[in-house]
């Protein structure tokens, strides 16, 4: 077993172990922290795949940015319950397990049945990456920046507190539970509006 293979197994075990904690941990703060472990280990896997730039981005963006954000989220919303998630009913967990197993089975079966090139090619340099960004994929790049911008704006708009004067805000719910309404037309047909 070469050193590289050993490294792979270690990283794989770390990723999967941490991932298991992410989906099962009761404490949400723990969940987020385990997620950080998973992502960091993925960054290690990236390094092993000689994608160093990506690994850096992964660590900076994910572990640095996103997880902090998620921690904020957890702190803000589950403060009262002690960061503890409600337990799922057993049948739900069982069904989820079956589904996950099925996904795993199908995907791995597909992978194993497909003849894959095992030999490595030269890893692209960061320079090549940058060049590719600004030439071949420049349109997608720009579109992405627009998307990020709109996501930020959208997030602000969605999460923004209503003005204090808004009476709806005083009562709490910003989205009032509306009267049962037709989602599709067929139902609406049955409830004639009085004219």
């Amino acid at each position, binding site marked *: 077993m070469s050193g*590289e*293979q050993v490294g*792979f197994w270690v990283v*794989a075990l770390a990723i999967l172990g941490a*991932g298991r904690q*992410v*989906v099962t941990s009761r404490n*949400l703060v723990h*969940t987020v922290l385990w*997620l950080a472990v*998973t*992502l960091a280990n*993925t960054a290690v*896997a*990236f390094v092993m*795949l000689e994608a160093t*730039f*990506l690994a850096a981005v*992964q660590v900076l*963006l*994910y572990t640095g940015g*996103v997880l902090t*954000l*998620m921690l904020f*989220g957890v702190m*803000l*919303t589950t403060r009262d319950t002690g960061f503890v*998630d*409600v337990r*799922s009913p057993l049948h739900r967990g069982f069904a*989820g397990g079956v*589904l996950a197993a099925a*996904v*795993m089975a199908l*995907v*791995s079966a597909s*992978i194993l049945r497909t003849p*894959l*090139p*095992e030999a*490595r*090619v030269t*890893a*692209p340099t960061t320079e*090549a*990456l940058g060049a*590719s960004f600004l030439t071949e*994929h420049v349109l*997608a790049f720009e579109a*992405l920046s627009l*998307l990020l911008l709109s*996501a930020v704006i959208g997030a*602000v708009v*969605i*999460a923004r*507190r209503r003005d204090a004067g808004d009476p709806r805000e005083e009562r*709490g*719910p910003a*989205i009032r539970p509306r009267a049962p*309404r037709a989602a599709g037309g067929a139902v609406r047909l049955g409830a004639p509006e009085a004219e």
Partner: protein
Amino acid sequence: MGLTGYLLLAAALFSLGVFGVVTRRNAIGVLASVELMANAVNLNLVAFSRHHAGPTGQVFALFSIALTVAEVVVGLALVLLLFRAKGDVRIELASELKD
């Protein structure tokens, strides 16, 4: 280590994510599970890029990461909104899809 190993690793990670998405009760938990799935996809992309050809795979992975970031941002905003509306973030509270 060959491509197959990485792909299987990613598949396993993805399956974990699926499990989390359908079982977690807390919206942030669901979000974290989605991150796992996205991460699995990125792993795949990078692995393919290494064993196949050229920078395209990595480029896509980068795009994917950026997209995920955007998704997290919006997702968290929604979670906040949900919290403000219902006082809790259990995801079954958001059952407006039922008529």
